[in-house]
């Protein structure tokens, strides 16, 4: 039986794709044999594997590679060996410097770009929040900068992550093995190892961002939200919740991947991925969409703090950091806008 034919030819800037089924394909083949022969000669011009990419830029995600053995056991001392025993048991997302020269083998390494996120060098006296803390890299960094109190917000159960409902059902059916291969079976394990090793006083609070509120968490002078919004179907509600826990005079840093292919539109474009790329990404936003969402949530003077080209083990992606300011600081009697209002997600 003759199947479908599909051809893809690159003519300069133009890409021509041709598809036909069954009998039609057969007739076409007979008619166009010489031309097809010519095209076959030019096969090397075809774009490999670009059919299913949908213009997606590789984004950091939840599917983690197995932990690699580190190059060594830190400084080689007995304490380093003991710590490594614990470190090696965890599949790390963040690369973190621990005592005794041990470095966690993370999926991402943000150490080289820490200084580019626009974080204040001195956070003395500030109450800070790290949203989606995972192994805690950013929370520990906020603490290192002198914050009076740091809270790391995260979920414990993989079923509190924002997956499509059918995907959650599938995950439940497939059991623990599936969770293990997705790298989401032991959320928080890395945090507790690093937390103990660093003798940190960061508080890890388990609360989905859709449920974050001033009643549950109090308010903060600085909120850092890095690579979280792309994993949410509803980033707007998340940003509204963050605004409700931003202290008057406080600020937020939203550090998110953006899709550079959407920048030239001059419109608030977003690409709906719907997590179909298997790494839990719902949306690829343009920088304009992210900025507009922050403004709609209530943040004022939203400014671009940095644009970064970054890597993780899946590839290269672009990231933008926006700084937004909370409500203006006023006397204590000032009522915070709508902090108590009901949420969209019950």
């Amino acid at each position: 039986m003759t199947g479908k034919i599909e051809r893809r030819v690159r003519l300069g800037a133009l890409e021509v794709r041709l598809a036909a089924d069954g009998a039609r394909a057969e007739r076409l083949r007979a008619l166009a044999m010489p031309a097809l022969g010519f095209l076959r000669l030019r096969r090397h011009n075809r774009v490999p594997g670009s059919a299913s990419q949908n213009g997606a830029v590789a984004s950091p995600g939840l599917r983690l590679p197995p932990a690699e053995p580190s190059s060594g056991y830190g400084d080689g001392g007995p304490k380093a060996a003991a710590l490594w025993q614990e470190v090696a048991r965890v599949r790390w997302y963040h690369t973190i410097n621990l005592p005794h020269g041990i470095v966690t083998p993370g999926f991402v390494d943000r150490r080289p770009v820490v200084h580019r996120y626009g974080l204040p060098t001195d956070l003395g006296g500030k109450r800070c929040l790290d949203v989606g803390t995972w192994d805690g890299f950013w929370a520990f960094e906020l603490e290192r900068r002198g914050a009076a109190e740091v809270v790391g917000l995260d979920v414990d159960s993989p079923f509190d992550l924002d997956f499509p409902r059918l995907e959650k059902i599938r995950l439940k059916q497939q059991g623990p093995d599936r969770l293990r291969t997705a790298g989401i079976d032991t959320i928080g394990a890395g945090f507790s190892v690093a937390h103990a090793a660093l003798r940190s006083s960061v508080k890890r609070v388990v609360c989905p961002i859709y449920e974050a509120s001033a009643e549950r968490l109090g308010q903060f002078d600085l909120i850092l939200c890095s690579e979280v919004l792309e994993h949410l179907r509803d980033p707007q509600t998340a940003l509204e919740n963050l605004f409700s826990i931003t202290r008057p005079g406080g600020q937020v840093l939203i550090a998110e991947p953006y899709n550079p292919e959407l920048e030239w539109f001059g419109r608030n474009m977003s690409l709906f991925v719907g997590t179909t790329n298997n790494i839990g990404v719902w949306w690829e936003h343009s920088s304009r969409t992210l900025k507009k969402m922050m403004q709609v949530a209530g943040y004022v003077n939203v400014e671009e703090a940095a644009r970064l080209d970054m890597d993780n083990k899946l590839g290269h992606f672009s990231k933008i950091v926006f700084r937004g300011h909370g409500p203006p600081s006023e006397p204590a009697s000032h009522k915070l806008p709508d902090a108590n209002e009901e949420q969209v997600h019950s």
Partner: protein
Amino acid sequence: MALMRAKKIHVLGVDLTLAMDARRAESLARSPLWQRVGKPSLQLLRRAARARRGGTNAVTNSYTGARGVDAVTLSLTPQAPRVRMAGDEAQASALRERVKRIAWYHTIDLPHGVTVQGVVDYRGQGDWHGLPPNLAGKRCLDVGTFDGFWAFEMENRGAAEVVGLDIESLADMDFPRRKRAALVEEAMQLRGTMDVGQGFNLAREILGSNVQRSLCNVYDLAPEKVGGLFDVVFISDVLVHLRDPQTAIENIFSVMNPGGVFLLTTAFDPSLDAFDAPLSEYHGTDYSWVWWSHSSKSLRRMLEVAGFNPIEELNRIRAANPLGEFHKIVLRGGVTG
């Protein structure tokens, strides 16, 4: 990897797709050569091809007489006016008095020759919106029923049971938290009331309808909230007013019977379909309480992620209402198993 602008042409049974890097295509489209030579000659070719196929496939749509180009299947059979019975003039004027006090959203034909004039007039467009002609034995849900036009339409088509899902007040709409007060004020000025049930209740009474109005936000929709599953779920003109359409669509999937049909009609942005990716534009309720305009590709993917299969496009049209001109699409999602 790059975002592509793609044009699919169907010639002699072969799908031919021309694709180009989106940014490059954009600058080419703006170039004088394309504007003066390429585009006019393409239009000429297209017109010639259409003439050869025999006439134009443009149809007039009764929204406000706007021309739709792609909706070849639109059938515009106006509903037969209800029979006027002799001596009902007194009843008619009494009814007109009651009708007058309500700000109607839907245009609905009531008995005694009374027609209420709403913001939108969908009379005779049930087929275009994908409703099966015969709904006998079916349990149907109309999401965002408002004055109930579509719920009554499904009842007229013989549905065994119809539930109209709605919110109690316009203040329950999905507004941004910070702009809620301002938008509630705006809605109040626009309609004079926040209540959305007055029209429904009156029409239901006058029509002697058995449609049940169920107060439940679509974000909270679940089988136990609406007394079980449905064979047909209909939603029209709601999706763009939601910040989180995915959750709404997933909730709808959760109330579908196996073998059921989901009919989705919504405004969309066909210009975004020119690209090879599911694009959406974020508006953040800047106008008309609209959160997003989606491409049909985004909408299809949302249905797909929620679990609908197969997903078909039934119709699309350029439409207009008093707020302006826009494009509409009708998608049908099936539930296998």
